[in-house]
């Protein structure tokens, strides 16, 4: 019996006494794909192209294989798809040895260039409202990696989900978005907030960039990419903002920003996360996404992923959370994640995290 009523996927609350065959999710989740034209060209792409020009990267190298034309970039109605943006990022990193570009872009990115959104971000009166606005407009503000917000104990946790198969560029994007959020929060709060930053990659050689651009408490080799802050800072009131929209901001109606909030991979992750109690499998997931298993697999492949990878990621995140935060026993976790016994969980956990259950607990 489903314990979690999948409200995340806009499902109507189901009567719990219904049989299990009743579809869990009558409305398929909405999402954008790798090749959906949803990225506003004058925002991320224009920001990147500006930056690349200050680094003297020639235009033909910058735009190679992206299908982007320079004259389109500043057209207000022009859109590109996530795939093109990823290619643009790859071109930039390939053509420069500088390791601070992700951080520089991050500082410039928010509040963004669409009037309604930036006004909402800038008029937020505390961190909680700011994060609300970010999550609401994340498809526009952060189309390539999506934000997942949750509360764990006394802490607000923001962590990053791959939306469309970022692969090698994932670290670049995490650096950029982490900088963007901490930079905007610092500006609005007019103080250095005591964030804790967690990164799943090893400490890079350019660790000084993290120190200077993010400051403070940075941890590498962690189980997830996240930024964490104590809840008390979420509701500290901020002074009223005197910022007015600059003229190159676009006055856009809410319609133009009305796109699905999450990318395909993030939508699948969310679905699995919400439905873990039903021991989801590929067939059921595909059906709930409103397509055949073959189509579903093909779509995952298009996004450089596969079902097992996302399912493992979900189970890993849940296991780490239950063990670390909730202090559950291994038996409880094994049962929740539908493992036959603790030995199987132990093996899988070692594979996902490189840690033993005991080490994860300490």
């Amino acid at each position, binding site marked *: 019996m489903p314990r979690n009523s999948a409200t995340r996927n806009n499902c109507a609350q189901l009567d719990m006494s219904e049989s299990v065959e009743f579809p869990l999710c009558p409305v398929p989740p909405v999402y954008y794909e790798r090749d959906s034209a949803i990225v506003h060209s004058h925002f991320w792409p224009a920001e990147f192209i*500006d*930056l690349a020009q*200050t*680094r003297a990267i020639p235009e033909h190298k910058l735009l190679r294989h992206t299908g982007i034309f320079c004259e389109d970039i500043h057209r207000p109605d022009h859109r590109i798809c996530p795939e093109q943006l990823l290619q643009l990022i790859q071109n930039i990193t390939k053509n420069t040895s500088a390791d*601070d570009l992700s*951080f520089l872009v991050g500082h*410039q990115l928010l509040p963004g260039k669409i009037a309604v959104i930036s006004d909402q971000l800038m008029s937020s009166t505390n961190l909680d409202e700011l994060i609300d606005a970010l999550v609401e407009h994340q498809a526009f503000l952060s189309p390539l990696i999506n934000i997942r917000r949750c509360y764990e104990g006394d802490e607000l946790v923001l962590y990053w989900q791959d939306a469309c198969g970022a692969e090698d560029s994932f670290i670049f994007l995490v650096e950029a978005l982490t900088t963007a959020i901490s930079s905007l929060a610092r500006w609005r709060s007019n103080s250095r907030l005591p964030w804790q930053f967690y990164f799943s990659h090893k400490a890079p050689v350019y660790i000084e960039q993290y*120190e*200077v651009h993010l400051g403070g408490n940075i941890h590498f080799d962690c189980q997830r990419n996240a930024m964490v802050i104590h809840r008390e800072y979420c509701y500290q009131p901020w002074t009223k903002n005197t910022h007015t929209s600059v003229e190159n901001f676009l006055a856009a109606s809410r319609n133009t920003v009305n796109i699905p909030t999450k990318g395909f991979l993030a939508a699948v992750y969310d679905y699995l996360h919400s439905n873990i109690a039903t021991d989801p499998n590929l067939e059921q997931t595909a059906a709930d996404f409103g397509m055949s298993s073959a189509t579903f697999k093909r779509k995952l492949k298009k996004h450089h992923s596969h079902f097992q990878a996302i399912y493992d990621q979900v189970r890993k995140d849940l296991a780490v959370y239950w063990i670390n935060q909730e202090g559950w026993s291994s038996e409880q976790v094994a049962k929740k994640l539908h493992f036959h016994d603790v030995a199987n969980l132990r093996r899988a956990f070692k594979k996902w995290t490189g840690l033993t259950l005991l080490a994860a607990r300490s």
Partner: protein
Amino acid sequence: MLALHKWKLLFLALAANLALVGSLASGDIKTTSEWNWLDIVGEGGLALLALIWLLLILHSRPAGRVTQFLSLGLSAVFIAGFQDWLDEFIYFPEGALWDHWIESGFMPIGLILLTLGIYHWHKEQLLITEQLRKRERLFREHRGLDFTTSLSGAHYLRVQLQHELAQGNQENPLALVLIDIDNFAQINRRYGNREGDNLLHSLSELLLLNIRRNDLLCRYAGDRFALLLPNTGKLMANTIAAEISQAVRHFAFKPQQQQDSIFHSVSIGIAFSCGQTAEADTPDSLIARATQALLHAKEQRDSQQLRAA
């Protein structure tokens, strides 16, 4: 850069063509069976390499005397090699001496010109090294060079710190100064990355003017500069830090978009290598201590501003 030298290249192509046409006109072509592959590859390789060196040099250097010598020398070497290569394919009649002259005459002339060029290059390099002195210490590594300020980055700083710490002893203390521009993020937000870069560039020049001949300035990351002061005690380091702080305060930066100058202040953190403590300093521990001092200075500044407000 190559566009600067297009006449040189055009002339060289013309000369090579003349040699080819002249050889074809005066001699007979050898049959394939008479070709000596070792000579073809060897002599052709020399000509080709000379051409590559020439292109690399022309591509990287502005016009001037040194470039003139180097390119003339390499051109002559190329022509000699090219002619040498041609006679692997062409019989020259006994009486024709000119091909011999080109082969054997151009080579020594070319090498002499090249030597002259390298000698002047050496003198020029000494001058440039003197100019770069405050940006690098005894060791050159172009790969870590920062695009915006032409200073070396944090990696170079760590290598130099390692080097200095290994040499240092109690009599020769070492000071590391971290300099952070206050409210730099706002400049970037307000005027854009380009103005931010301009400011960083100007400030790096300003800092270079305010340090001693043997000091080393690096761009640590973002808006943070690192200054390595060898053989410097507490008193001297504090004086230099105060001077820098003064200089930055009085520097009137003019953004392109507006008439008014904008003024800045910096926060400074200093750490000293201490020979007497039990555990020796590493570059990272020294940087960490300087960072702590810097954050402390920033906090003090913030609280002072709050009190003032």
